């Protein structure tokens, strides 16, 4: 705004506006606020553009493709096939089962570990936290093949077990459901531990002192005060793990040995083997819809922005 306009506005402020007294500088200040908002928007526009190009457009395209039949016209046949074929139903059932079991095992293993970490002095906790994070920074493929090396028929575990005389014939711990679960739990564990640990660290020690002071034994302090207060983190961690599992591809593909077919693998097969983009797209859309539904239900139970890093106001 130039100086002339400012002077006019000041004059109006001093004289009083025809429609009643106009506060001094109100318009200029409002304009400054709008400019700041615009600048902020400008800062995030590259990211928004990226999301548009690599997320919104392909997903929209996918959505469109899922309604294109084999003859090229609009059709519901891709969805109809999913309903008719028992195989697809089976694939969704296995996907949810594997995800649920992985989540439960992660909770059972991860919660006590996170509790242990949260009770350590901060130096020791930081060191242990690095141990939790290093696998997260290692390539997924490397970790999965490492498990294959350990678990296969002539792998480390079987050779050692047989050398020590613990069992005589190689046991089947990979290329099946068990192998898939072992690999997935290992890879998902940090995603559970981090939010649980975070929520445990925010629990004020005074709550635990107060509970003890009021007469609660250590076990009662844990179950009546500590555990309920750590639930938001546990819920967030479980949700993250479950949703990541739903779309998991690499680990079940390598460690499942073709016996554990999850939705993501089925999508890949449809494209690579049958070049059926319509069927693959429909599977993708259904999986995406189910994931969003789960997130929606979860958001009705608990405030997601709070458990995913936000704080109680």
């Amino acid at each position, binding site marked *: 705004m130039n100086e002339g306009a400012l002077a006019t506005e000041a004059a109006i402020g001093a004289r009083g506006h025809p429609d009643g007294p106009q506060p001094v500088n109100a318009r200029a200040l409002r304009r400054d606020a709008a400019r700041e908002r615009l600048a902020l928007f400008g800062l995030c526009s590259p990211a928004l553009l990226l999301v548009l190009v690599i997320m919104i457009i392909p997903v929209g395209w996918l959505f469109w493709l899922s309604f294109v039949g084999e003859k090229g016209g609009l059709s519901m046949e891709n969805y109809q096939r999913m309903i008719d074929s028992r195989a697809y139903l089976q694939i969704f059932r296995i996907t949810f089962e594997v995800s649920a079991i992985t989540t439960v095992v992660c909770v059972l293993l991860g919660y006590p570990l996170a509790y242990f970490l949260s009770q350590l002095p901060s130096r020791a906790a930081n060191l242990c936290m690095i141990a939790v994070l290093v696998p997260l920074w290692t390539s997924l493929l490397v970790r999965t093949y490492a498990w294959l090396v350990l678990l296969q028929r002539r792998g480390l575990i079987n050779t050692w077990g047989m050398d020590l005389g613990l069992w005589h014939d190689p046991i089947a711990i990979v290329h099946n459901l068990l192998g898939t679960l072992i690999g997935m739990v290992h890879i998902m564990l940090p995603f559970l531990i981090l939010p649980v640990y975070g929520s445990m660290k925010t629990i*004020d020690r005074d709550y635990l*002192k107060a509970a003890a002071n009021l007469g609660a034994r250590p076990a009662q302090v844990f179950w009546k*005060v500590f555990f309920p207060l750590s639930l938001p983190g546990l819920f967030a961690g479980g949700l993250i793990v479950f949703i990541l599992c739903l779309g998991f591809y690499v680990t079940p593909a390598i460690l499942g040995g073709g016996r554990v077919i999850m939705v993501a693998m089925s999508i890949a097969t449809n494209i690579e083997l049958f070049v059926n983009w319509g069927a693959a797209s429909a599977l993708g859309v259904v999986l995406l819809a189910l994931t969003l539904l789960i997130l929606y239900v979860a958001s009705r139970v608990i405030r997601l922005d709070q458990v995913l890093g936000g704080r109680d106001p």
Partner: protein
Amino acid sequence: MSKQASLPITIQGLTKRYGDAFALDRVDLHVRSGEFLTLLGPSGSGKTTLLMTIAGFTRPDSGSLKFGDVESIRTPAHKRDLGMVFQSYALFPHMSVADNVAFSLKLRKVPRSEIGRRVENALDMVQLGGFGARRITQLSGGQRQRVALARAIVFEPRILLMDEPLSALDKKLREHMQIELRRLHEKLGITTVYVTHDQREALTMSDRIAVICKGRVAQIDAPRQLYERPINKFVAGFIGDSAFLPVTFSQGRPLCAGAALKVDDAPVGDGGALLMLRPERLRIVTGQPCEDMNRFAGTVKGAIYQGDSYLLHVALAAGIEVCVRGASQRDAMACIPETGAAITLGLHRDDTVLIPDE
């Protein structure tokens, strides 16, 4: 809730070190049954460590702690049966007000019908009747403070501990709660140990005050005794504002700036002493000197208006600057001497206190 049986606390030789620093250094302290005792000290003095040791959250290195006649130094916190109000209140955020208050009763397997009645009684006592169903997050700071108090007294403990419970409240509310806590104490007659760093709060509420300094009890006395007859320079300097003038002895008679001091009880011992000058005990002397008045000549350095009072800075002939506080009534304000004026300050012999110079 009526008068409850209360217990005395006896502490002997309590010591706690963190590395080389003593948080508690052979503390001896006796809290009388039914007494309101305040632990007062600057931050880092060990007053909170002392309270946390009584509560059972800090394990001392050595010493004895008795509730009544029972040695309790090794008793875990949850078996001590002490009421406690935390500085942060520590109200459980996942429970309602009533559930917070009922927590201790449920753990003690009190019958359900009685729990309801006692929770309601406790909430009534802190003027929060009918607030039971509220969530903690819906309460204001003052209301949370009251819930914390109700939760601490509902199981009728015989000792109540409070760790700076009013420090989070604004001044008006704090002063209101001081009176209310004091009344509640008179009603329940429960032995209370109260920690604060606010000297006015300590003076207002306590039967006795223990001033804590560097892990030791510097002095323990009733508020007035503590303020008017501090036994060392730390207590004199920590409670109230004071300036100190060096005092020498000549044939057992105290001299200050060459003049003999009129004083009732001079400290025994041949070391030096200090004369304690409180701003509100000094007054400006005009006209004929009174018989019982010690007099000090000085020059006015300036006056500061503080609302309820004014503060006059005066440089004494000895080169030490002191303050004189006067009520800011209209006529008093009218005759405040001007900067640079030579005046005489008077101190009544009853207010003349000598403390040993360490």
